[in-house]
């Protein structure tokens, strides 16, 4: 039997749409096999990599994955450590043992991270029951002080970072702002002046709106040069 592709690369697909026929193609993220057809799970962009077909969702909440850099907000403090709200259905746990620096026995934990504090952390474990463990040991993992936070759609984060960080480096250089993008769709911006922070915010909002269009880096570059 011959196999046939029914969609093109980067085509927008809807849930339940047939992506390919035949057993030569394999379903990857965001798609599944039923009979000899591969079907999309999401409203997203089809992506074909040799035999694998995946769908990158265009919308949706954050889906926690191991090694992701995220920005969490302290929502609870227990004996064992902190509970972080990371913008998905499940809270993440930051254990005392996973923090940098020394914490004394019976120490007041609010001295380190207080309620409402923003923390850059890395996911080290996600169980099937969606228990999420994070760490703040490592370079760049810290508490965020000052600045502002904006929320974007998590599926658009890779576009904001760009290939090998090209997009984010460009924004940082042009606006002279300190920008940290969490995989969970939270973006922290801290600039020297308010104007620069506003410019960086505008650019990030623009990327979010037009993330599915090709040649976005050049468009943003033009936009930045105009402002200067």
């Amino acid at each position, binding site marked *: 039997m011959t196999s046939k592709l029914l969609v093109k690369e980067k085509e927008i697909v809807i*849930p*339940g*749409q*047939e992506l390919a026929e035949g057993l030569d193609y394999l379903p990857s993220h965001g798609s599944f096999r039923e009979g000899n057809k591969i*079907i999309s799970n999401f*409203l997203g962009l089809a992506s074909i990599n040799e035999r694998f077909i995946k769908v990158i969702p265009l*919308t*949706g*909440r954050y889906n926690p994955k191991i090694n992701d850099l995220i920005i969490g907000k302290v929502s609870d403090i227990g004996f064992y450590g902190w509970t972080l709200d990371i913008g998905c259905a499940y809270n993440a746990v930051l254990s005392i043992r996973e923090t940098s620096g020394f914490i004394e026995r019976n120490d007041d934990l609010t001295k380190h991270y207080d309620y409402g504090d923003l923390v850059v952390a890395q996911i080290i474990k996600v169980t099937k029951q*969606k228990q999420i463990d994070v760490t703040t040991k490592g370079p760049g993992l810290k508490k965020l002080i000052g600045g502002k936070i904006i929320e974007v759609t998590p599926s658009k984060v890779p576009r904001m970072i760009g290939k090998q960080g090209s997009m984010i480096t460009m924004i940082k250089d042009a606006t002279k702002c300190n920008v940290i993008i969490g995989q969970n769709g939270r973006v922290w911006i801290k600039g020297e002046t308010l104007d620069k922070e506003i410019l960086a915010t505008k650019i990030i909002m623009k990327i979010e709106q037009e993330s599915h269009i090709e040649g976005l880096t050049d468009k943003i570059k033009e936009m930045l040069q105009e402002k200067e």
Partner: protein
Amino acid sequence: MDKRADGRKADEMREIEAKVGVIKRADGSALFKIGDTIAIAAVYGPRELHPRYLQNPETGILRCNYDMASFSVTERKKPGPNRRGVEISLVTEKALLPAVDLSQFPNAVVDVFVEIVQANAGTRCAGITAASLALAHAGIPMKDMVAAVSAGKINGKIYVDLSKDEEDVEDATDIPVACTARTKKITLLQLDGNITKKELIEALILAKSSCEKINKIQEKALLEFYRQNE
């Protein structure tokens, strides 16, 4: 051919409009308009489920809420949930459940709120169609799309998408039907009135082919939402 009171053919639906992304703060939202009936659906989640005794450690759950605005009907409706609203919430949930896949979200909930802002028969069908669009827009994993339409019998003849005037005819039978786009399975079937087996089959065939037309409109609405920025 004999025409209906508003000039439509037997297999002709009222004018349809579908739009995605109408509520900014929701994770997904959609508006579905069929004739004078307007339904707005909003989806929130997956999010933590409270009260905790409802949580299911094996899969996420779907929670639907159907409500009619007090100004949606000619005579003011008392706001808030009522017997009818609770029933339609339940059938909406059952109609959508085969299309969504929440196995990745243990202990969590996906909330669907359907609000009817203007009613002229066929509100539960409009609500289900809007909710399906909103779920897709919210990025919930789905196996299929759901579309719904009502069929009915007036004076012994089968018609699709009854309006309020047609529904109020004496001895009229109303049959809301929801159908999945790919697998063509019926996920909602209710019946109010009397009908023979032969007529029911005729009505179901008519409703199914109309659902396919609505599926095309749903697809267009979803794709258009992303094309408008280009």
